[in-house]
């Protein structure tokens, strides 16, 4: 057979995933979803100890957004360019 290895590879991943999925279904892992949203917050310090937000922090956010927009524009331009060549 020409490609038994990657079929074995894909099947092993698939079988493990199925076993875990059935375990999760049987053990109620898809219940209580609303409570789970709050789980990371459960043992954190009170909000009063939060780091103070400065004007600089807000500007950093805007700089990051600007970078993201520039990246998006560049990605679109490159996609157009490569397809246009074709």
């Amino acid at each position, binding site marked *: 057979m*020409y*490609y*038994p*290895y*990657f079929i*074995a*590879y*894909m099947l*092993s*991943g*698939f079988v*493990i*995933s199925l076993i875990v*999925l059935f375990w*999760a279904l049987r053990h*109620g*892992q*898809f*219940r*209580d*979803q*609303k*409570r*789970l*949203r*709050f*789980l*990371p*917050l459960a*043992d*954190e310090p009170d*909000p009063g100890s*939060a*780091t*103070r*937000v*400065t004007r600089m*922090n*807000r500007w*950093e*956010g*805007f700089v*990051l*957004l600007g*970078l*993201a927009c520039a*990246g*998006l524009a*560049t*990605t679109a331009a*490159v*996609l157009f*360019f*490569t*397809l246009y*060549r*074709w």
Partner: protein
Amino acid sequence: MAATADTIFDQHLTARAFSLTSAFWFAFATSIGMVAAGYLIAPDFMANIPYLQFGRIRPIHVNLVLFGFVTPGLLAAAHYYVPRLLRTDLFSQKLGLMSVILWNVAVVSAVVSLSTGHSQGREYAELIWPVDMLVIVSFALVVLNLLMTVRRRKEPVLYVSIWYACAAVILTALTFSLGNVIWRPDTGALLGIPDAILLWFYGHNVFGLLLTPLTLGLAYYVIPIVTRNPLYSHTLSLIGFWSLLVVYTHIGTHHLLQVPVPTWLKVVATVDSVAMVIPVMVFLINIWYTAKGKLGEIHADIAGKFIFTGTIFYFFVSIQGSIMALPQVQRITHFNNWVIAHSHLGVLGFAGLSALGGLYYILPKITGKPLYSRFLADLQYWLVLIGIVGFTVVLTIAGLVQGNSWFAGETLYRTLPEIHSYYVVRLSIGLFIALAAYIGLYNVIRTIYFNPGEEA
């Protein structure tokens, strides 16, 4: 009784050891990367030193970044948040410490074996069999520790970060064993095309099923805490998790579209590469909605800042990945510096920044003291950010120059003078990243061992 810094210090031995591992190898790996970048400008750079030949340096850089820096950084965070989310202690700190020691033995062995020319010559799977076995045993110890922690949990339902962390280590233990063909110790390879197919299943999955789930798990833990918002939707996060498992596991053949592998496999790989938009956007929508209106708070927290920026890079690297799998686009973008830009965007921009964020999140928690220097961490953030953006821009342009030249029928050697200047800029930008790595190492060591700060 409130925990003192000393008791906290003892409780988090494994996370601390993985943190130091990550910080140290980040500095080492970027230094090696600088040497490799030097070769691209001057091919006879250090040519008389056989241990530092480009063919040896390059896999050392790649393996160190993967197994020395990013994975241990993400595992450090996982060894902190997994017990927290399960409301229990880590199964065994001694086992954890043993896994870190073995992990470092594996990484050192990788450096020594590759620099002395012992390589299996398969990209991302260069390590020889004994080193492969060390990596597998290290992973097995981590899997055992995390799964036993899950077994002893007091929280009955698993938060999505637990799913991601466990999937990452279990699937990678499997992926690594199969991808490195460990049942053939002499070559670590199959013959012909089946080997190429298997290699790229491994080559893609070692990133997609190790770094991606560990990073997403970390983001799902830290972003709600930093923003003090509950996760937007836990159900959505589970949909993202399961769709990632379904879609990601068989897209590796998009590296082989120019190779005579079966067409149906190329189609599966390409279609699922595009389908990756589903798990990616599910994650990003969930995290960005969680962070909605809290950009200021995120940037006020050093860990939040690193990890949130990582999510933005995840968006770009994933969009790129889906687009690059299209044969028409790949005609221009494959086999050139575009791919190097893409891999740096993913490993450093997405997973690396997030790993650093994870370290900065857990360091105050595992030492009981505040971070030694917020300023140095900020400086590191901006140096890495400038570095990765600069890297991406320069290498993308160089890649397009190369791709278009070859597409137009130009010979390879005639393109080299055209991209030389880009390589010079690349090395210069690399200095930012190397400097950032050493600053981070200093900050981590000072935070853990020589921290004058008040107990938190």
